[in-house]
């Protein structure tokens, strides 16, 4: 009976095609270095899940942000684990995405017909850094506060439009409740939405073109 249900669904959804094209697609002889993209995506999903769990207790308000993070760490069962994974996963994700980029560069995988995959990859790297930058402020401790002060101040040194950028980032001339709120919004809605969309296109292109060959001597 399960077989029939499966066949009925497969006829309408096409699991088999998905399976063949996504997981069973032919690959050139490659190495572990070619798994970094998948690893980055795994971390993205993990960060998404642990991030959703963190919002159950976290409060993006200057009055409560620090205390709520403290509560997650000490008052909630396995809060230390969820936040720990999110914290270390963030660092690991930046590293993995960067090393993935280096791998693509050194194996010259960015060349025709994969230029767009590379350009979108740059977007993915920048949005990943954006996640790191916005997420860093959320615990609202001294390090977070001053790191964001410095980071936004650097953005403010741009000629002519610096002050505008600084105010736009901070939601005003100084770090305030507005800064925390907009960083939170950017961290959980705006940047992840962009990141997910870019990942979708990136993946589509990879499946369309297939993995690139490891370069040979004559290449």
């Amino acid at each position, binding site marked *: 009976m399960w077989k029939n249900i499966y066949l009925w669904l497969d006829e309408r959804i096409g699991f088999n095609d998905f399976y063949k094209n996504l997981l069973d697609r032919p690959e050139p002889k490659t190495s572990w270095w070619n798994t970094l993209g998948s690893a980055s995506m795994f971390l993205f999903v*993990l960060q998404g*899940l*642990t991030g959703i*769990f963190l919002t*159950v*207790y976290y*409060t993006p308000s200057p009055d*409560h942000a620090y*205390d*709520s993070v*403290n*509560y997650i760490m000490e*008052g*909630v*069962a*396995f*809060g230390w*684990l*969820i936040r720990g*994974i999110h914290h270390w996963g963030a660092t690991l994700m930046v590293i993995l995405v960067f090393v993935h980029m280096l791998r693509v560069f050194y194996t010259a995988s960015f060349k025709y017909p994969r230029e767009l995959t590379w350009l979108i990859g740059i977007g993915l790297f920048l949005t990943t850094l954006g996640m790191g930058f916005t997420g860093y402020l959320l615990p609202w401790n001294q390090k977070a506060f001053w790191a964001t002060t410095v980071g936004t101040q650097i953005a403010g040194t741009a000629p002519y439009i610096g002050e505008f950028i600084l105010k736009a980032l901070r939601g005003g001339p100084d770090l305030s409740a507005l800064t925390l709120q907009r960083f939170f919004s950017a961290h959980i809605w705006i940047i992840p939405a962009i990141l997910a969309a870019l990942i979708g296109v990136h993946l589509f292109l990879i499946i369309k073109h297939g993995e690139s060959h490891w370069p040979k001597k004559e290449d």
Partner: protein
Amino acid sequence: MSDSHELSRRDFIKVTTGIVGGLIGTMIGLPSVFYLIDPAFKEGGKEAWIPIGKFEDMQVGMPYPFSFTRVQVNGWERTASSFGGYAVRKSDDPDELLILNSRCTHLACTVNWSVDANAFICPCHDAKFSMEGEVLDGPPPRALDIYEEHRITEDGIIEIFFKEA
């Protein structure tokens, strides 16, 4: 693969991926469930004797209203919760005092004593309770709750025993 007993390379990868994925899923999934439902396991349970008024101020036939607030720590915040009730005096014996909780047993609105109706009226769904807390009319499933324990101090003040939920 001619020998069917041998695990093919592909199947080995599939099985390994399944096992490792399952392990990671369990190791993160189970703690996540506990993380989510953790507040349901927390117990308050602080106890206190709360003064509600002087015995001599309570009149027979006229429920004596009282209210008090308790500060509870919920997560990272202190929250003040209000409680209230009516002391119903029947005789000169303070032990016979009936102390009702004014929380309606229907959906937890606060009932008020109405002199005209000679009953406790709940403003939410027109429930009516007698002076003894019995249901007279409306949807409540049971009589008003009672503060079971009370005592009188040397100064003639009635105190009730209160335990946090």
